[in-house]
């Protein structure tokens, strides 16, 4: 009974998405570990890590779609939550290095020895344990989102203004983390990780394990997001997106609804960042750069805003394109392509790739019908008018 309801809740598209994630989670590590390097079925560890990275981005995109697509909060600073989660994980991995650093200090990471730290700063306490670090991965972005959102939503900062102050937030963090005296490695960030829970992070097996965990986390994130948007609460969020004042007049506490989804989304972004760091092996302040956050928004826009699956799809497609473009003679044209894509998507396909697919389906099912699906429910057009 519960399973049946759950399946219904996920819709066909959601089930398809989960199925694909499951297949990827099994197939790719299997191809990596089971087949020898010479086999045509072998997938290199590099490719696996790359796909793992895309999946982290997909999680991040789902988190962003939850607030933007369903609640109309365009965050241009979501990268801050992603990076904070990443830093929390990075700090755990730094503490795991222990005396194997260049300076062989039993407790202090290399950069602290280099900067003449005498003892571990308070912010680093407890990060030798993974459960504590995992808690911080959720707590730090969540707390920042709570404080920021509480202030912003309560004073009804909305729309463009909110976008600009979220951007200012990540910009301020970007500047702060560059400073050496913040105690988070400054410009170089955290890197040279050795192991996680005793397993070598560079080892093929660990990487495969991390990949599987990322897939599971992605599936869980998607299911939670889906649960949220399909619930009554989710319907209120959509109402807020489309007509905030009207929802308020109906008696809903708009601020509370917004704040909850905002904090949940920030935590999801934090988890995505935490899984991202051990796979790519570095976290530095550039992750806070405002441009990263805007890029993430574009993944969502390209995939299809307000669909969750579309957001994940957009993240994977754009990043795959980025890898293709930036690895050869096309490198100089990547920004042309990305920028052009932004313009094209916003002008020509406001519902993204998923929207294209839907309209193609609709046309196939009802040939000759005049209903243009692009017009039927366009969230952005509505929110503009009072």
């Amino acid at each position, binding site marked *: 009974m519960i399973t049946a309801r759950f399946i219904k809740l996920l819709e066909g598209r959601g089930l398809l998405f989960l199925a694909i994630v499951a297949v990827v989670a099994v197939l790719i590590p299997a191809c990596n570990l089971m087949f020898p390097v010479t086999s045509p079925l072998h997938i290199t560890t590099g490719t696996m890590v790359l796909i793992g990275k895309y999946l982290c981005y997909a999680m991040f995109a789902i988190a962003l779609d939850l607030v933007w697509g369903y609640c109309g909060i365009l965050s241009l600073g979501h990268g801050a939550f992603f990076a904070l989660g990443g830093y929390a994980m990075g700090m755990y991995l730094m503490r795991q290095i222990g005396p194997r650093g260049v300076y062989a200090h039993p407790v202090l990471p290399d950069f602290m020895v280099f900067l003449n730290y005498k003892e571990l700063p308070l912010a680093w306490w407890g990060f030798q344990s993974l459960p504590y670090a995992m808690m911080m991965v959720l707590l730090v972005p969540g707390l920042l989102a709570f404080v920021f959102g509480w202030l912003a939503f309560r004073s009804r900062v909305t729309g463009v203004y909110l976008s600009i102050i979220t951007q200012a937030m990540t910009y301020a963090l970007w500047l*702060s983390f560059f400073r050496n005296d913040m105690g988070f490695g400054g410009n170089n960030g955290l890197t040279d990780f050795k192991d996680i829970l005793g397993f070598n992070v560079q080892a093929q097996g660990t990487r495969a394990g991390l990949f599987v965990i990322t897939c599971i986390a992605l599936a869980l994130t998607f299911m939670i997001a889906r649960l949220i948007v399909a619930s009554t609460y989710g319907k209120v969020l959509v109402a807020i997106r489309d007509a905030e004042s009207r929802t308020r007049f109906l008696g809903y506490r708009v601020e509370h609804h917004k704040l909850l989804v905002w904090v949940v989304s920030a935590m999801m972004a934090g988890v995505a960042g935490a899984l991202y760091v051990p796979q790519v092996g570095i976290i530095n302040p550039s992750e806070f750069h405002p441009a990263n956050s805007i890029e993430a928004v574009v993944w969502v826009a390209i995939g299809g805003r307000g669909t969750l699956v579309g957001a994940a799809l957009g993240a994977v497609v754009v990043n795959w394109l980025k890898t293709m473009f930036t690895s050869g003679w096309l490198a100089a044209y990547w920004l042309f392509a990305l920028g052009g894509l932004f313009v094209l998507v916003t002008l020509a396909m406001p519902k993204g790739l998923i929207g294209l697919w839907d309209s193609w389906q609709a046309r196939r099912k009802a040939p000759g019908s005049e209903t243009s699906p692009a017009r039927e429910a366009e969230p952005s057009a509505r929110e503009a008018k009072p």
Partner: protein
Amino acid sequence: MIRQLYRRLAATLLVLLAMAAPAMGQGLNEALDRFSADSFSETEAAVTAIAASGEARGVDILDALADRRLFAAGATKDVFYRNAAGEGFDARSGRPATIPAGAAPVRLNNRLRNTVQAALGGMTLLSPDPARRQRAAEAVFRSRDAAALDTLNLALVRETVPKVRATMLEAKAAIILSNPATPEASRIAAVQDIIAVGDHDGIALLRQTLAAATGPLREVIEQGIVTIERRQRIREVGQTVWFGISLGSVLLLAAIGLAITFGVMGVINMAHGEMVMIGAYTTFVVQEVFRINFPHLLDWSLPLAIPLAFLVAGALGVAIERGIIRFLYGRPLETLLATFGLSLVLQQAVRTWFGPTNREVSAPSYMSGSFEFLGMQITYGRLWIVVFTLFVFAMLLLVLKATSLGLQMRAVTQNRRMASAMGIRTRFVDAMTFGLGSGIAGVAGVALSQIDNVSPNLGQSYIIDSFMVVVFGGVGNLWGTLVAAFTLGIANKVLEPYAGAVLGKIIILVLLILFIQKRPRGLFALKGRAVEQ
């Protein structure tokens, strides 16, 4: 004591002679003849005569004499000297020469040596070149050589440059205060001289003297230190405010175009920074054209670049409005994304075209250098930018308030349908407004090319600050933008000494975020229903 008296007398004599200023050249030649006599009295007469000649080369010759680098050839009466680096010169012509083997160094005794020193000090203190006088006065201030006192007094009478005069006064006071024999009254007078000048060196000198001072002198000095410190603090505040205004004018310049596109039209133009960048590159191109074709008119390239940058960026702005933005009116978030994409394309286009490295835009002659105002150093470049910013702001106000296009712009933003019903071509006005905002961003680029690196990333560094300024000031309010820019500029500079540049900026950002919570519509919010869109 007697020697000192003698030195003073000699110096006074020299100065008097110098003031008489006899025929130049002639005097030097005659003086040089005397060196060949190889007698102390003749040499002394020569030194006096050289000092009297007032020729710049005389200093080199006397310097050489003091260091035994001056050579006389005896019979031919030729005189040569070596400079400190060991190169030989003919003393009469000042041209390089090889010193003949027969020439012997001119001899000195102790008395003569003092005469030479006094003459040297006098000559430089009375030199026609103010920079030289300044250096001489500083040297006296450091050495506190009592022998220079009389020369100093005379130099003070003649001195007209205030800065040099101040240094001389301080030097004089330093001599008086370091001599334990001077009476109390003249000491107090000296302290008061220092208070009147009141700079960093002066306060150090007063502190030194304070240790040994007693009675009324001590009181005067203590008061003096307080006075000077207060004056310095005021000066520091003035300097901070000036730096703040200077930074504020840069912020205003970068934000003012955005105040039109974002503030008046409500379009989130993330490519605004790129318009600034394109203005800067226009300046670069204009300057290169001048450098290659009309190098003598290079100073004119900047004034010419201003209208050109306006046209280039403005035309691009119109194209962007017609090509992209008009499809997105009423959808601010989509506009934001599309213009961000556009900014990436423009950046990459400039990077492909001009290369990723910084381009050099040189400052015209009238923008380099600095002057002193109430003890503050003010560079002409910064002053011009402040003036230029205010000029641009005034022009913009004029366009909006006093032209028919400005009237139409305001009508369209206030009530588009009514404006349209009145026969205003709203689409045309939209394009013109966006073009105006972009053009002004281009003009800002001309000014920013003078103080920032002209690189494809130029615009990026201003975009967030610009949005902050516009939002802080209140959207749709040009005066608010002005006040916000200067407030942020000054606040930044006030915080800088305590927190450092980066942390100061972070604090400002956090304060701004908090401020927007308190007043979501900025400092000077527009009132009425129009806001509630």
